[in-house]
């Protein structure tokens, strides 16, 4: 009975070009012809993708498909890995971020990152959030700094829970609270783009739901790119979804399309759990 009547594309690893809409009008971040390799091993093959302004784009795909590597290119975190070689065009608001004249420190103040395992500094909650702001001189006196801390914690949905003692160590919070603290720390420097690398994979369902809700709120002000292993998470929070497969970008479409009627067979297979 299992007669395959429709085959849109060969069920093969050969991916010729990206289907869907990888590029958008007025993107926040434009990337073209991105190739990344670790020493001899190439991890990303000729990827072209736009990050939309004040939108959430989710990057999904099986393990080792290059989505985290791609994400880390966007704030030049791959610079810290000596054997990693990045080539291609990366334009944030039209400016090449890999140009010699560009300072990665400044870039990272505009493009923040939240990691998979919550990593608050071993300082107090207040100092955690204030660190970035203090570093970049965003507050001219103590009360302004406190203001920034309070606003960031509120926006991260954490203020109510910690406001009675902001000088507790950040590491004493629960996992979900710690991750929200890291998010507060990131938004305290008022970035334009927030990158999230599997932000809830280490958290329980309720903490996950809180953070997803937070993401939706944050997307009104920031452009967000998230890498996730959970397709349901991508389906819940993102506006656009990009599917990576073995270092190539297979399909990019708005999330509704990807999850009801994806264009590429590989995408369909991954989403329905047929492989990967």
């Amino acid at each position, binding site marked *: *009975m*299992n007669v395959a*009547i429709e085959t849109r594309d060969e069920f093969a690893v050969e991916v010729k070009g990206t289907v869907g809409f990888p590029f958008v009008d007025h993107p926040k971040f434009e990337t073209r012809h991105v190739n990344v390799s670790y020493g001899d091993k190439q991890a990303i093959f000729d990827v072209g993708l736009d990050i939309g302004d004040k939108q959430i784009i989710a990057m999904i795909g099986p393990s080792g498909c290059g989505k985290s590597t791609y994400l880390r290119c966007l704030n030049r975190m791959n610079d810290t890995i000596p054997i990693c070689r990045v080539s291609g065009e990366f334009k944030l608001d039209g400016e090449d971020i890999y140009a010699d004249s560009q300072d990665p420190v400044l870039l990272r103040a505009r493009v923040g990152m939240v990691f998979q395992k919550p990593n608050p500094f071993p300082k107090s909650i207040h100092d955690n959030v204030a660190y970035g702001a203090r570093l970049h001189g965003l507050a001219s006196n103590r009360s302004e700094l406190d203001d920034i801390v309070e606003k960031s914690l509120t926006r991260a949905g954490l203020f109510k829970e910690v406001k009675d003692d902001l000088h507790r160590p950040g590491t004493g919070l629960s996992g979900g609270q710690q991750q929200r603290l890291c998010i507060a720390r990131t938004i305290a420097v008022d970035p334009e783009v927030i990158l999230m690398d599997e932000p809830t994979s280490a958290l329980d369902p309720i903490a996950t739901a809180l953070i997803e809700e937070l993401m939706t709120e944050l997307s009104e002000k920031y452009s967000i790119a998230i890498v996730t292993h959970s397709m*349901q998470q991508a*389906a819940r929070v993102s506006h656009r979804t990009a599917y990576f497969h073995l270092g190539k970008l297979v399909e990019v479409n708005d999330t509704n399309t990807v999850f009801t009627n994806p264009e590429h067979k590989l995408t*369909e297979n991954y989403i329905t*759990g047929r492989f990967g």
Partner: protein
Amino acid sequence: MEIGQHISQKYNEALETLRNQVLKMGGAVELQASNALKALLERDDELAELVATSDYKINKMEVEIDEECAQIIARRQPAAGDLRLLLATAKLVTDLERIGDEAEKIGRYAIKLAKKDTVMEMHAELSHLGELVLDMLHGSLDCFARMDADQAMNIVSEDDKIDKEFDALSRLLITHMMEDPRNIKNVLRVIWCARALERMGDHAQNICEYVIYLVKGKDVRHTSREQVRERYFAAEEKSK
């Protein structure tokens, strides 16, 4: 598109079971429909009685299949093709159940008409309409079984045939009613049977539309045939 080959064996089995249940229901409904027609045409009141009292089985199947769909959706969060399969199945069984209801109606009228001659005078036309409808029903279920959107499209295009037959039959029946007022009651019964048959045809077409949605991912309900062909099938032809 293939149902099977998920990584989860249980998921595969669940979908297989579901499909088999639908086909089984389809078979039962086909049987009801053909029996109803036979009972009407051959004035077999025992068969008619059987048809009229067997509808509960089909209703039961509808409930079971809907329940299955709900469970699979809850447990598997299906997406893309799997999601469309489940949505289409849920709608499909509704239409099948309605076909069963129409067959039951025909059965009940057939019981009454079995003792009269009325049917003999329009036997050929009724038979013709009935055949068309049964073919369409069979064809639509076949499309579902084979996930054949092209064939489904073809079937959908043939709905005017049924309309034409029904119109012809209606004219004939009106003539009969005008000829002899004593016929009116029974002729009305026949008209209602014909109507039931025409409705079965509509439902069979719905089933074909669901198959197109399932396979192509496009909802073609309430769209004219020309537009559907133009938009979705012509493009396929071009790209092949």
